[in-house]
């Protein structure tokens, strides 16, 4: 139990450090370009932009105050779950993000499922048939897969399955069928890294002395692969899951734009285009929170899979 508290504690610390550092950097960067959001707003509100208007807005949004004071206020707001309001739509940032979050999460989960469906068998095949054709297949899939831009893959999939064959819908998220193309694109785009990781890790495990010992005890091949070697490779699988989260949340942005998926990707790209800083800040905060929470889950899974970690010893 103490172990779990320790893990949770250290992850919380990570969250705090990450959010403070990132938000402070973004605040500093904003300071470099102080006038811009005001000018954007003036355009949006379609007013004749006068010097006076600009100053009024600067005051209203406290952009004329020292940066540390602005930053302090933002942090206090965050602690009260107040992420400010959008400069453009004037709506609370938290509401805007929470509204879009489910769509992004469901697509991410879809991508993750596809990722595992591809990466696990490919990685295992590559390792078990090391040096033979399934291995070459696995390696070349990983290599070329890592070279294809995900959005282009998506375009090609759309072209084949929607435009030419007219099998699958493209835009929006109305039905389950809508999930297929975006999830596949996301999963395929992310798979190469993990095929490689799993393959290399499993090959190393298969050569380790405890596998030799298991052979010398006369255990069957299947038994050795599934209950001894793969058990050891569950650790990289979990690592894989942990590593995926960040990449997934980044990669999903492009896919969302491509498939007009109504998730956070659209929100953030629009916010960036219109320099809607509170939204950008809030978005970073939420992503940071998601990353830390998923890392926390991974940490706890580690301890369950690998009892050695109870002792605080590394096994990898």
């Amino acid at each position, binding site marked *: 139990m103490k172990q779990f508290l320790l893990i949770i504690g250290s992850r919380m610390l990570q969250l705090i450090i990450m959010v403070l550092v990132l938000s402070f950097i973004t605040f500093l960067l904003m300071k470099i370009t102080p006038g811009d959001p005001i000018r954007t707003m003036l355009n949006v509100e379609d007013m004749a932009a006068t010097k006076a208007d600009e100053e009024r807005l600067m005051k209203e949004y406290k952009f004329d105050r020292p940066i540390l004071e602005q930053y302090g206020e933002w942090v206090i707001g965050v602690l009260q779950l107040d992420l400010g309001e959008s400069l453009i739509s004037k709506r609370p940032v938290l509401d805007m993000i929470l509204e879009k979050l489910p769509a992004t999460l469901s697509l991410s989960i879809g991508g993750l499922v596809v990722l595992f469906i591809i990466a696990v068998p490919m990685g295992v095949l590559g390792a078990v048939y090391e040096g033979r054709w399934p291995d070459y297949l696995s390696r070349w899939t990983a290599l070329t897969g890592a070279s294809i831009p995900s959005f282009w893959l998506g375009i090609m999939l759309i072209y084949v399955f929607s435009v030419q064959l007219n099998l699958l819908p493209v835009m929006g998220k109305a039905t389950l069928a809508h999930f297929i193309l975006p999830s596949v694109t996301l999963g395929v785009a992310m798979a190469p890294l993990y095929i490689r990781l799993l393959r290399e890790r499993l090959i190393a495990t298969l050569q*380790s*002395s*405890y*596998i*030799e*010992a*298991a*052979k*010398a*005890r*006369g*255990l*069957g091949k299947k*038994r050795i692969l599934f*209950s*001894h070697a793969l*058990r*050891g490779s569950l650790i990289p699988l979990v690592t894989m899951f942990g590593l995926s989260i960040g990449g997934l949340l980044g990669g999903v942005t492009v896919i969302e734009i491509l498939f007009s998926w109504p998730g956070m990707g659209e929100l953030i790209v629009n916010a960036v285009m219109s320099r809607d800083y509170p939204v950008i800040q809030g978005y970073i905060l939420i992503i940071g929170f998601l990353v830390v929470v998923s890392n926390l889950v991974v940490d706890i899974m580690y301890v369950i*899979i*690998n*009892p*050695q970690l109870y*002792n605080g*010893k590394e*096994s990898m």
Partner: protein
Amino acid sequence: MSNSLLTVNNLTIESRSGEPLLKGINMEIGRGEMAALIGESGSGKSLTARAILGILPDEMKVNGQILYKGRDLLKLSENEHRLLLGKEIGIIFQDYRGSFTPYIKIGQQMIETIRTHQRISKKAAKEAALLVLRETGLESERVYNSYPFQLSGGQVQRAAISMTLALRPNMLICDEVTTALDLMNGEKVLKYIDKARRETDCAVMMITHDLAQAYKWSDRMHVMYQGAIVEDGPTEQIRFHHQHPYTRKLCSSLLSLPKERKASSAEGVYSI
């Protein structure tokens, strides 16, 4: 020798590139015998053991005969060979940490091994496992319920030995079992192996680079050098009346303790 258990005839191993790794090994190990296979790194000791067990990497080419109780191990199918492992022929490795899969409890692995070779219930297997653990002088229940990392090196090594002996093999291969252990722990392990050998009449093939250990424990010594056995014979004969120049060099490299110096300076043991 009528009580021969293992006979190796002209065993050769080549690497994938055709480089000879073993150059025609001939060896005979009798039932219940403690035979030492001694040599320096790269002499081919471990390779010989792995050939007997049939766990060499696929790309190596093996030729010759390995007769175990009259059956040629090299002619067995993979499955037939596998069923001999653990049951008839056991091995204990140098790296005791690698004897057990690190994230499975020792008891579970013992049951798994026992049940691979004997059709008995889990409960019976557990009892058998606890019994052999107790025989080694370990706290059987605790060891049974432990992960390997929770035990000390000596304990893991003894647990590994007891698991290997649980199926009462007729032959035990000890591959540098004391190298990773401290001197005194190593002695304890060897004492236990010797005791088990006497009780079950199991032959032991002791692979080692430690001359003192071979002198102390073995009945017969096989001296390996660069992939060949250059000399073999009863331990006393190798120690005091060796013929081959390499054996002489090897034997003279055992530094003697002050007492031994006086006793054995006449016998060619290295002295100042």
